[in-house]
């Protein structure tokens, strides 16, 4: 039973049309590393800075070898001073540098909110279009293995609330590279939310430094029954649910939202015309979260197509406890998604078939790792 469950998770979920013909596969982490490498090779103004960037663990391998290639001036560790160093990077960005900052946990970036919101997000606007802040901030969501309430948060909504910042959440390896390259080229502050559980997933990645837009959601799994707008790792869970449900004649149309600001609602609204039902999946909380934004926009702009209120699948409204015994029910997964989809569809399957779907999607305990070969302490 458990074997079947893990085999439902796609090894490579990238079915995007534009990548057809690209045979080369990399993991998400490798794709980021390749993106950084190519960006630094192309533009001598690019620097990579963060706590642990040149250390033996190399930010989960994403900065491995960069210092050897590009030197200590451009690839550097950082004092434990998130706010000050964000300000330093903003000042440098105004003066011709393109800094890529990285925080191994998104939670650490909270210390930098003053500089990000008061300075980075405002500078271009405030000075009437004079001055630009081409800053990239990579932030990692450290879910799992008991990372607990201050090491595993999904805070994209905090950043996405702020005009002047772009917030993207690549899911596929190809996007991890392509959107990073685009973010580095962009003359605005861009926050890239990277979910740790995506790091080992392989995907098609073009070798060339091909950039991906930061303002486009992407339909990745066509289907006719329920529109599923998913962010980050929830795309993976959605695809797993879609795969099994499809065998029983229930089709999910899965959209990888890819970006929280700007939010691209077009594929969602297009899909609603066909399905009339919306599920919004986020890796964060519901209250004032990006799922709230997507749902509101769907109601405001696609009300006439909705047959039911949108259904959000998000984290429960409390912090994540550390013990995996306590967090067993914390993270919604493919099974949760299938259950909610079938409720939205007024239970279209006979009870025994529904139970079979849930059983096939049910994940074994413990659930604090994405798959058996992904272990701590990370």
């Amino acid at each position, binding site marked *: 039973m458990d074997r079947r469950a893990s085999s439902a998770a796609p090894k490579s979920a990238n079915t995007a049309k534009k990548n057809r013909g690209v045979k080369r596969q990399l993991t998400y982490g490798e794709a980021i590393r390749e993106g950084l490498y190519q960006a630094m090779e192309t533009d001598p103004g690019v620097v990579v800075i963060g706590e642990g960037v040149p250390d033996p663990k190399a930010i989960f391998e994403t900065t491995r070898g960069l210092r050897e290639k590009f030197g200590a001036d451009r690839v550097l560790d950082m004092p434990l001073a998130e706010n*000050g160093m964000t300000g330093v990077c903003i*000042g440098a960005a105004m003066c011709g540098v393109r800094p890529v900052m990285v925080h191994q946990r998104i939670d650490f970036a909270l210390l930098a909110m003053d500089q990000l919101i008061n300075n980075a997000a405002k500078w271009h606007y405030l000075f009437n279009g004079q001055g630009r802040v081409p800053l990239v901030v990579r932030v990692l969501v450290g879910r799992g293995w008991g990372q607990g309430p201050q090491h595993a948060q999904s805070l994209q909504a905090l950043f996405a609330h702020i005009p002047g910042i772009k917030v993207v959440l690549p899911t596929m390896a190809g996007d991890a590279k392509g959107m990073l390259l685009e973010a580095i080229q962009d003359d605005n502050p861009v926050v890239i939310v990277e979910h740790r559980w995506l790091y080992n997933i392989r995907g098609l990645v073009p070798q060339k430094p091909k950039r991906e837009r930061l303002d486009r959601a992407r339909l990745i799994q066509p289907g006719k029954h329920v529109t599923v707008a998913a962010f980050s790792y929830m795309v993976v869970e959605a695809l797993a649910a879609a795969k099994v449900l499809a065998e029983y004649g229930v089709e999910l149309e899965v959209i990888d939202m890819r970006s929280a600001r700007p939010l691209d609602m077009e594929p969602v609204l297009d899909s609603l015309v066909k399905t009339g039902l919306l599920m919004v999946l986020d890796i964060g909380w519901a209250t004032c979260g990006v799922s709230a934004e997507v749902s509101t926009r769907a109601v405001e702009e696609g009300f006439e197509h909705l047959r039911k209120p949108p259904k959000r699948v998000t984290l429960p409204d409390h912090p994540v406890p550390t013990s995996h015994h306590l967090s067993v029910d914390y993270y919604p997964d493919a099974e949760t998604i299938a259950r909610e989809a079938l409720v939205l569809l007024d239970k279209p399957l006979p009870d025994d078939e529904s139970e079979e779907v849930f059983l096939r999607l049910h994940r074994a305990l413990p659930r604090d790792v994405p798959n058996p070969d992904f272990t701590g302490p990370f």
Partner: protein
Amino acid sequence: MTQPMQSLPEMYHTMLRIRRVEEALAERYPDQEMRCPMHLCTGQEAVAAGVSIHLRQEDVVFSNHRAHGHYLAKGGSLDAMVAEIYGKSGGCCGGRGGSMHLVDLEAGFLGSAPIVAGTVPLAVGAAWASKLHDRDQVAVVYFGDGCFEEGVLHETMNFASLKQLPVVFVCENNGYSVYTPLAERQPDRPILEIARAHKLSVDEGDGNDVQDVAIRAGKAIQAAREQFKPQFLELHTYRWLEHVGPYEDDHLGYRPAGELKKWRKRCPIQRTAQVLTEEYGWSQADFDKREKWVAKEIEAAFQFSKESPPPDSITASQFVYAE
């Protein structure tokens, strides 16, 4: 005669210009047409004048909410500043910033902002860029004594020192944060020593004596430029007027009796005028001539602001993102 002394007439002019501009702003502020908070630096002009005399156009400056003096001394456009305070389209931010947010990229004044210590790391970042790109360019940031209570100042000094960046931290210690004296905010210890502990080259001087400022700033800027050694200057000075707004506020009683009077006697402009009279042989006519130049320039700036069209509110949504 030391080098800065030769530039004394120019520094006098800079200080006089700042003073008269702010007096003109204060005089017109009650008209309710300058609808933004305004923090005047009256009494503190010597710091900006004495530092800027050593700066090149390509050197960059960042400042805080009390920025008029720093901006003008670096060569920021007076017309654009006054128009900005009036919220006009001809303002340096097209009306988006007001008095607290000044900018003149051409003059190397990269911006001022009021979050306490918020621009300090920006200057260090500019200095870092200068070093990375091997540019012969110094970054200066002006901030107050209150910044020593902000963590970001220490975070930033740590990095500037670690990487030996060409930055000059200029602390204008005027003894107050809004109405709160330093003794209520910080223990009795010299803030200079904190900067020294960060391994910055440090110096302190009389912020109301433009010659003293200029001598110390000259050394600091040269060392930052030529040796890539980050510098810290603490300049003791005093704010004559209320924290924000055009008026005096001695009647509120938060300053010890006689303190303001004592500092008024140490007016940096009068002191310089005395030196110019006694050592440079300036006559009343020399002073009158400069008053006239400044008055003419100020009149023109207010005229410019008056004629500058108001920005169209439909443009308020522009420039959220750079294209």
